[in-house]
Structure formats: C-alpha cells, structure tokens
C-alpha cells in the first residue's frame, strides 16, 4: 500500500464517521486530497500547511458573522492523518467547469463584498490574509532562464511592496478571503457560498478582486463579465474599491501581482510538462512585458 493509499484510507474512515455514503476521491489540485462521503467532504490540506493559522481560520469560519457568506465547517476540529492536516466540510456543488461562460460572477462579487464588510474585530483573531506572499513563492518556482522567465522576473521586481520596489500607501486591515477564484464557490442549500478558509485573514480585500481584474486587463476575460462582477461588487457596497469612479487605483498593484503570479505558474507548468507556452499563457507574458514598460514609464516621471 502506498503512502497516498494510506492517507486516502484514513480520510475514508474520517468520512464514514461524519458522512453518510461510501467515500470517493474528488479531483482537485495535486497537493490537496479531497474525499466525499455523501453530505460531507474530508480535506487533507497541502503538505507542510501550518496548523496554528488553520485552527484560527476554522474557528473564525464557524462564527455566526460569516453565515451565508463562507461555508461553515462540519466541525471546528483540525485532525491529522499521515502528517497531513484534515478538515471536514459540508458537500456543495461547484461551478460547472464545462460552462465557464455561465460562471456566477455577480454571486461571487456579492459574497466577497459581504465578506469584506465583516469587521475582523467581530471574529476570533485571524492571521494575515493570503495573497501577497504567494506571488514571490510562485515566481521563485521558475528555475530556467528563458526570455519569458526574465520578463516575469522583471515585472515582479517592479511591483511596489512585493519585488524590489518600495510599498506605496497604507495597507488596509480588513477581512479578506485571500485566494478567490471561480473554484472557491459552491452551491449549498440553493445558494452560492464561498469555500476554503485556508487563506482567509486580515489584509487588503482588493486582492480578492485581483484575479478577475488581471484576466480583464490581460484581455482574457470578457469585459462584460468583468463589468458585471465589478458592478455587482459595488452595488453590494464592497469596500475594496471606491463606490464609483476609477477602481484601478486600488486594483492596479494586486492585479499586476496576480498577472505576474499566473504568468510564473504558467511558465513553471509548461517547463514541467516540457512544452511551449500556449496562447493563453503567452498573453500573460505579454501583459508582464507591458507592466514592465508601464512601471518604468511611471518611475521615470516620478524621478524627474
């Protein structure tokens, strides 16, 4: 029996304890294992995940202030199985991967706006939200020296507060999901709800809008979908951007950072699979190139 079979066997036993059907493995990212046992799913977190921040996030996820916004775990307890942290959640129905054009942009935006409106002081103490530190980690995963990699590193270096450029302005200290994308919502009880508290914490909520903002800026996301998302976020009173006028003052750095992160991840994946970058991935590299030009232009104006 392999180590992974042992882990799955142990997760299955946890699933039987909380669930109501024979456990089955669900497809997910390679570093996470998710088993479904009827009405519950059992999640083995990525190897090396820290226990203490996760315990804090599980406590916060159980708090009534987040009801209807973030899926409530079945138990606050963080278990361990074969060296992996394990949590148990209700089963939900994810967004259909086969119909990305039907993705619920407005529902996601409203949930984020409502999450951002919850005062961190109303919750048990939380660590910093994920997002900013991940950019550098993903950039560091690129091991080669191709032209594309050099562009991504140069773009990273000119990001204020992340690369070698100094930070600008104060960082808000608000509640943020920390890792939002279309895989972070499920339908549960007839309503869309956010899932995954792994990166939830205190920080700049603009980072939760950064992925769609980056996709829109790169020209990958249909502008209509972007404007629906941003409009719904504003209509719900979302505080990450001003209620009207230019949202890019707040979105620019997070969206550029996510562009760099997505481009770095694409380069690393293509290298691992020993293939050239595809069209979508190349669009991200082109966008990094424009970020370098844009930031250099801003810099030369500022020093005149």
């Amino acid at each position, binding site marked *: 029996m392999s180590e992974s079979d042992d882990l799955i066997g142990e997760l299955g036993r946890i699933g039987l304890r909380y669930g109501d059907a024979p456990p089955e493995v669900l497809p997910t990212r390679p570093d996470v294992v998710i088993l479904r046992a009827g009405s519950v799913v059992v999640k083995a977190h990525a190897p090396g995940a820290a226990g203490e921040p996760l315990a804090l996030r599980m406590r916060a996820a159980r708090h009534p202030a987040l009801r209807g916004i973030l899926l409530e775990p079945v138990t606050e307890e963080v278990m361990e199985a074969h060296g992996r942290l394990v949590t148990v959640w209700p089963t939900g129905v994810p967004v259909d991967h086969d119909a990305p054009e039907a993705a619920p942009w407005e529902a996601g935006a409203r949930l984020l706006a409502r999450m951002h409106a919850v005062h961190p002081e109303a919750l048990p103490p939380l660590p910093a939200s994920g997002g900013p530190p991940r950019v550098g980690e993903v950039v560091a995963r690129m091991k080669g020296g191709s032209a594309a990699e050099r562009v991504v590193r140069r773009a990273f270096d000119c990001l204020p507060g992340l690369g070698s450029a100094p930070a600008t302005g104060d960082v808000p200290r608000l509640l943020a999901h920390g890792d939002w*994308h279309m895989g972070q919502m499920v339908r549960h009880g007839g309503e869309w709800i956010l899932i995954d508290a792994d990166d939830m914490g205190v920080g700049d909520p603009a980072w939760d809008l950064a992925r769609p903002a980056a996709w829109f*800026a790169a020209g990958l996301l249909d502008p209509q979908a972007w*404007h629906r998302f941003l409009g719904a976020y504003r209509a719900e009173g979302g505080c990450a951007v001003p209620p009207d006028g230019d949202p890019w003052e707040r979105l620019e750095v997070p969206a550029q950072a996510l562009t760099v992160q*997505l481009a770095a991840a*694409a380069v690393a994946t293509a290298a691992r699979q020993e293939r050239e970058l595809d069209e979508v991935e190349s669009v991200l590299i082109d*966008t990094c190139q424009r970020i370098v030009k*844009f930031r250099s232009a801003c810099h030369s104006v500022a020093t005149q």
Partner: protein
Amino acid sequence: MQCPKCRGNMRTYERNGVHIDQCDGCRGIFLDYGELETLTRMESQWSQQHATPAPPPPPPPAHGAPGWGAPAPHYGGHYGHHRHRSWVGMLFST
C-alpha cells in the same frame, strides 16, 4: 384700414421685417400675403439656433481599463480560448 371682424381701426406695426396689422378694438391681427410663411420660416430658424444640442455619445464605462492592459482584447474567441484548457484551469484554480 378697417378690421374685417369688428370694423375697428387697424394699426400697422413692423417687427423684424414682417408687417402686422392689428385691430385697436378686438386686437385681431391681419397678415399680408406671404407673411405667415415668413413668420413660420423665422420661427424654424430660431428653433434651429436654440435647439438643445444632440445628446452626447454615451460615456465610456465608468470604470475603464488600466494603462498596462491589453490594447486589443483577446476574448471573443478568435482562437476560442473560452474553452481553452489553460484558461479554464486558471479560472478555477489557485
């Protein structure tokens, strides 16, 4: 000249090149041949000059695109990326 209606005295006025005969008694007005057309023409000229300007073109979206954004959008399926594997992967994953 006598008013054709009340037989009162009609007085002649000239306003902007138009002759107007008005009765001192019933205040009725008599226009010479072509003067009604002249008035109509003047009225339409006045309206053109004072017409409310055509509504301006719709403003660009209140929240535009950033300066470092793509000059020409890649969406719209010129290579059908909406079902492209790496686009869908990116949409749904960390």
